[in-house]
């Protein structure tokens, strides 16, 4: 009897659980709602903090650089070719050599790293046998966390003598050497992101191409790589960021001379990759440690940082817009 009653109450409980009532449908759990609300707000706050920090950096750069901007003027910074901030007579605040140097070293690095990186990514993702891939991928990833000072040291003691010998130069520390070593630094970023995006191209596309009689190379060239284009572009952008912002390696490899790295070739002024250069980042690192606090020179270094910030920001923004525009076009949004 007792057992029966127990059973009945159990079964009632179960059927009670299953019963759908109007009350249940309209009743909302206060706890679940609160949790939802809090989690949503938490994400918002974390996202906002990231943007806020970025704006704070920008504000800080402008505030610290405002003295120099006011006294020297942005035009002098962007077009002047003389940088003698602490000279008592005839001080110059021309950052153009640094801008050109940064541009040269970054472009040089990307010219080497983009084809090299994309082909390596294609090889790892599409061609390499499984065993080769399993060795190559970790190696590339280790390269990404390689301390930059070690690469700089390699450039200093191994690469620069080779460059000097090869091209008959007295000094192998120049924009070319810096470009080569920087390309090695940008490479892992480009490879891993490009490889991921090539890998994520749906298998369907490849099958369709093969079924139409395309060869493996034709499929890679006309289907897989174009379909992975936005991911590959993202990889290149991050590689650019790495190259333009890198300080220690360039500092050790580029020679750091304070001159315009250009040369006349048949009446045309062209960048000279075999001249010793000082990039925006390297200049801040070299002079930042012993500049008198609050001086005009101090403020001028912040203007250089501001220029660097704007360059990176503009390049990234442009790439972002291009990538999303292309994606929209493809998906017909």
């Amino acid at each position, binding site marked *: 009897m007792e057992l029966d009653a127990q059973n009945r109450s159990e079964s009632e409980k179960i059927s009670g659980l299953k019963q759908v009532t109007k009350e249940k449908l309209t009743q909302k759990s206060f706890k679940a709602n609160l949790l939802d609300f809090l989690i949503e707000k938490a994400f918002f706050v974390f996202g906002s903090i990231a943007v806020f920090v970025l704006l704070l950096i920008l504000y800080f750069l402008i505030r610290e650089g405002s003295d120099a901007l006011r006294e020297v003027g942005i035009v002098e910074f962007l077009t002047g070719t003389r940088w003698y901030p602490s000279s008592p007579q005839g001080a110059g605040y021309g950052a153009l050599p640094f801008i050109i140097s940064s541009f040269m070293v970054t472009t040089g690095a990307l010219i080497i790293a983009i084809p090299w990186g994309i082909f390596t990514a294609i090889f790892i993702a599409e061609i390499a046998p499984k065993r080769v891939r399993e060795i190559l991928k970790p190696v590339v990833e280790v390269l990404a966390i390689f301390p930059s000072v070690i690469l700089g040291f390699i450039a200093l003691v191994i690469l620069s003598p080779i460059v000097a010998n090869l091209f008959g130069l007295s000094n192998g520390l120049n924009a070319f050497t810096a470009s080569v070593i920087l390309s090695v630094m940008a490479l892992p970023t480009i490879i891993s992101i490009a490889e991921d995006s090539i890998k994520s191209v749906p298998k*369907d596309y490849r*099958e*369709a191409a093969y*079924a139409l*009689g*395309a*060869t493996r190379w034709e499929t890679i060239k006309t289907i897989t790589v174009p379909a992975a284009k936005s991911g590959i572009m993202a990889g290149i952008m991050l590689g650019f960021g790495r190259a333009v912002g890198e300080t220690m390696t360039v500092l050790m490899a580029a020679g750091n001379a304070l001159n315009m790295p250009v040369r006349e070739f048949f009446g045309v002024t062209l960048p000279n990759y075999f001249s010793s250069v000082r990039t925006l980042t390297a200049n801040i690192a070299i002079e930042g440690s012993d500049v008198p606090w609050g001086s005009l020179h101090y403020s001028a270094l912040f203007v250089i940082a501001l220029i660097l910030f704007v360059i990176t920001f503009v390049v990234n923004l442009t790439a972002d817009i291009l990538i999303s525009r292309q994606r929209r076009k*493809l998906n017909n949004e």
Partner: protein
Amino acid sequence: MALMKTVVREKNVEEKLQQHSEENVNVFKAKGLNLWYGNDQALKNINLDIKKNGVTAIIGPSGCGKSTFLKTLNRMVELVPIVRTTGSINYHGVNIFDTSVNLVELRSSVGMVFQKPNPFPKSIYDNVAFGPRVHGIKKKAILNDIVEKSLRSSGLWEEVKNRLNESALGLSGGQQQRLCIARTLAVEPEVILMDEPTSALDPKSTLKIEELIQELKENYSIIIVTHNMQQAARISDKTAFFLNGEVVEYDDTDIIFSTPNDKRTEDYITGRFG
């Protein structure tokens, strides 16, 4: 089957002539075909002659090897690296497993339409022009002609002629599948393999594809895998019933669906399993 028996009986008589006429009748001739994925045997001693032109349907429950057999005909099955085959499939007097076979040629004369519509993330025009371009056609005028002709053949031209440069991913599922058929037609194949081409489509789009198949069978040999038996009955001339990697029965569609020889075929068709 009847043809096979005749061949056996009159083996000695006019063998040459027989072979010659056979090539006109049959597009594929599979002999003792076995296929393994690793250690799992997916096809067991398949002997099947596939008629030229017309529609051949392959039916059977999931996992019976029907798709595998279809993908063997253009050797797409080899994209799975652990695949191993024995036996032969004769196509124009050549065993397609022969090492001398040019896969590019084979696949451009044996086209394929997949289960899920898979247009490339490119414009409608570029999708259709892909095959011809791969095969070396560069002249814009010729490509334009091919694209229009292929889209007309697949019944899509009127719907897309004003937006050829828009992305193919903006089309509906049924339109995408007809685009995939147009893309296959653009390389002028002889055979079109269709792997459950309507299973991802709504009834209206399915009907359109079925009507299209009826038109195309005049000029192409179509081999279609389907798990929809009404579809096989509606559109095919010949039907092969696969079960556990074997061909249980292969005959005219009318016979398969009215008076099948094998008990298992009857059970499957009447819905007793599968």
